[in-house]
């Protein structure tokens, strides 16, 4: 209570000093201004980046996705190549039975980059054989009114049905034709279009290429491709039972490690110990992103930290100079009854006022920096803003500057508090 009563006049006094020495105050604040500005801009941009990473990982199936791919045997097993059966639908059954942590298994059989034809129009895209489980594993869906996805029955019956990626539609069909129910030709085989996958519109990690402009933007790679039943792909195109890979979706991301281990053991046992498959997760990708994030934070944080440190020294320097100029004032204040603690508080409050005002100016500058960075990034990348300032970060930046100001103010304030009043009054 008493402390607050003493604080208010000290702050008022600090503002008065600030006003009386505008140029000097601004100079002493410059370090804090730049420090806070770079700190806030840095955290904002890094956070924006990390947000984009997350979105990217999510678009790749998220952290709860495990990918099993076929791979050539390692050197020491090469002589056993004839024993390798590759990844097959039998593996899918085994995993279903032995790895309860896995919720969905999506077998995938790549047919290849094929030409699709409809009524004289043509386009080329990837053709994949999948099952109904593709949707939950890839986190995709078919929007209402856009037909349906491949069903278990389609797989069982080797149906000649096809689901199109949204980016394929405008290349193959005139705008006034509803693709669902139409028949397209793939390698001369007639497939009935039963649905269109949802369109992914991302604002996240941008993968730029010359062809990425236009519909779907840079997410075109996710929206292209067509899907047929895996059984159809294997028997009618590939002519063998080897899958190109499996996508697994686990129920609980915390059990990713266990699920990977169980999957690996099951497959190794089923494959007679042959390592003709690889298992990857997005964990590694996410981990790489995290490392990048940490590296960014450390390097940029270092820069911000140094400028805040320099800012603190600037404040201390100016406070010491200011005290030297006001030794007589300190003497007078002591003579009329000020205690050491009163003067300590007065000068500490002055340092705090300088740092708060500096911090606020720094926030102002940081909005400018973030704005410019966003402008540059959106010029380079066609869609989506990259970073937005949020209040929590700005509050942190301000708090940082206040702490710096207080720390920097302690020594000068102590000097003022300890001045001998008689000596101080004699000072010219």
């Amino acid at each position, binding site marked *: 209570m*008493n402390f607050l*009563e*003493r604080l208010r*006049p000290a702050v008022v006094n600090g503002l*008065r*000093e600030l006003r*009386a020495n505008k140029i000097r105050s601004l100079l002493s604040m410059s370090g804090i201004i730049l420090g806070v500005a770079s700190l806030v801009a840095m955290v904002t941009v890094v956070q924006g980046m990390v947000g984009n990473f997350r979105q990217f990982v999510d678009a790749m199936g998220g952290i709860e996705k495990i990918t099993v791919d076929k791979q050539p045997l390692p050197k020491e097993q090469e002589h056993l190549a004839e024993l390798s059966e590759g990844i097959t639908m039998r593996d899918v059954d085994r995993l279903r039975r032995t790895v309860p942590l896995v919720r969905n298994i999506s077998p995938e059989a790549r047919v290849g980059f094929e030409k699709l034809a409809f009524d004289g129009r043509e386009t080329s895209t990837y053709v994949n054989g999948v099952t109904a489980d593709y949707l939950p594993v890839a986190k995709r869906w078919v929007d209402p009114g856009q037909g349906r996805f491949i069903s278990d029955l389609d797989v069982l019956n080797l149906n000649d049905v096809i689901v199109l990626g949204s980016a394929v539609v405008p290349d193959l069909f005139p705008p006034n034709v509803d693709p669902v129910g139409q028949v397209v030709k793939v390698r001369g085989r007639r497939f009935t279009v039963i649905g269109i996958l949802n369109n992914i519109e991302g604002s996240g990690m941008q993968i730029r290429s010359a062809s990425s402009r236009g519909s779907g933007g840079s997410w075109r790679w996710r929206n292209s491709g067509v899907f047929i039943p895996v059984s159809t792909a294997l028997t009618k195109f590939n002519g063998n039972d080897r899958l190109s890979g499996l996508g697994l979706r686990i129920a609980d991301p915390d059990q990713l490690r266990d699920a990977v281990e169980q999957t690996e053991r099951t497959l190794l046992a089923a494959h007679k110990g042959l390592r003709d498959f690889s298992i990857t997760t997005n964990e590694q990708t996410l981990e790489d992103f995290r490392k990048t994030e940490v590296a960014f934070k450390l390097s940029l944080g270092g820069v911000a930290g140094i400028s805040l440190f320099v800012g603190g020294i600037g404040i201390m320097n100016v406070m010491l100079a200011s005290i030297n100029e006001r030794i*007589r*004032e300190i*003497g*007078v*204040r*002591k*003579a*009329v*009854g*000020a*205690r*050491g*603690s*009163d003067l300590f508080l007065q000068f500490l409050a002055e340092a705090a006022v300088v740092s708060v005002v500096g911090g606020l100016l720094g926030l102002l500058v940081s909005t400018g920096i973030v704005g410019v960075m966003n402008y540059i990034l959106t010029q380079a990348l066609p869609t989506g803003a990259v970073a937005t300032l949020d209040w929590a970060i700005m509050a942190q930046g301000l708090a940082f500057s206040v702490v710096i100001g207080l720390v920097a103010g302690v020594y000068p304030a102590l000097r003022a508090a300890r001045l001998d*009043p*008689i000596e101080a*009054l004699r000072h010219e």
Partner: protein
Amino acid sequence: MTSLISIRGLRKTYRMGDENVHALAGVDLDFAAGEFVAILGPSGSGKSTLMHILGFMDTPSEGSIVFEGEEVARLGADRRAWYRSNRVGFVFQSFNLLPRLTVLENVALPLLYRERPDAEAAAAAARVALERVGMSHRLDHRPGQLSGGERQRVAIARAIVGSPAIIFADEPTGNLDVRNVDLVLDLLGSLIQEGITVVLVTHDLSVAERARRVITMRAGLVQEDRQR
């Protein structure tokens, strides 16, 4: 008259290089409430040291000071600050007003260093004190806008705003012209009617003559103590 301050065997020794300097070499004095006293002496006589010790700005090396019945010779810094803001006022040769504060703020300053500062009450008291010294028409001026005589009157207002028991005026007329010298000395002299003890510290005999009691100091000792 009742005794306000009673000092016995007061000594103050400074160490200057290898030598001990005895600024006060055993002083015994009594000051009554409402007395108008001048302490006269050349520089180095110990009069300033005596004023600083009696004004709670410094502590003696030896001896006893009884102030309003309490032994105060060995008080800590915060306690001495309390006495400065509550019981003592200072008037300086160079006025020592704070240039950034207005006249009113300068005068109210001592009250803001008390335990329970009340800005409004302090401003009200400052107005009364400025009225008392005839400066109530300059409340919002800065010290730089005032003449020397006016500044010293403001300084006197600051000294009396906290109803002190004693005021020390250290060469209060040293920077003033003749007309203002009389005005300021009359003003100081009139304060004893309010029961305030006024101590003029000066090396100027003509100034000292205005007091009713003149204490002459030399080499850290009281040489003469005469009532007029």
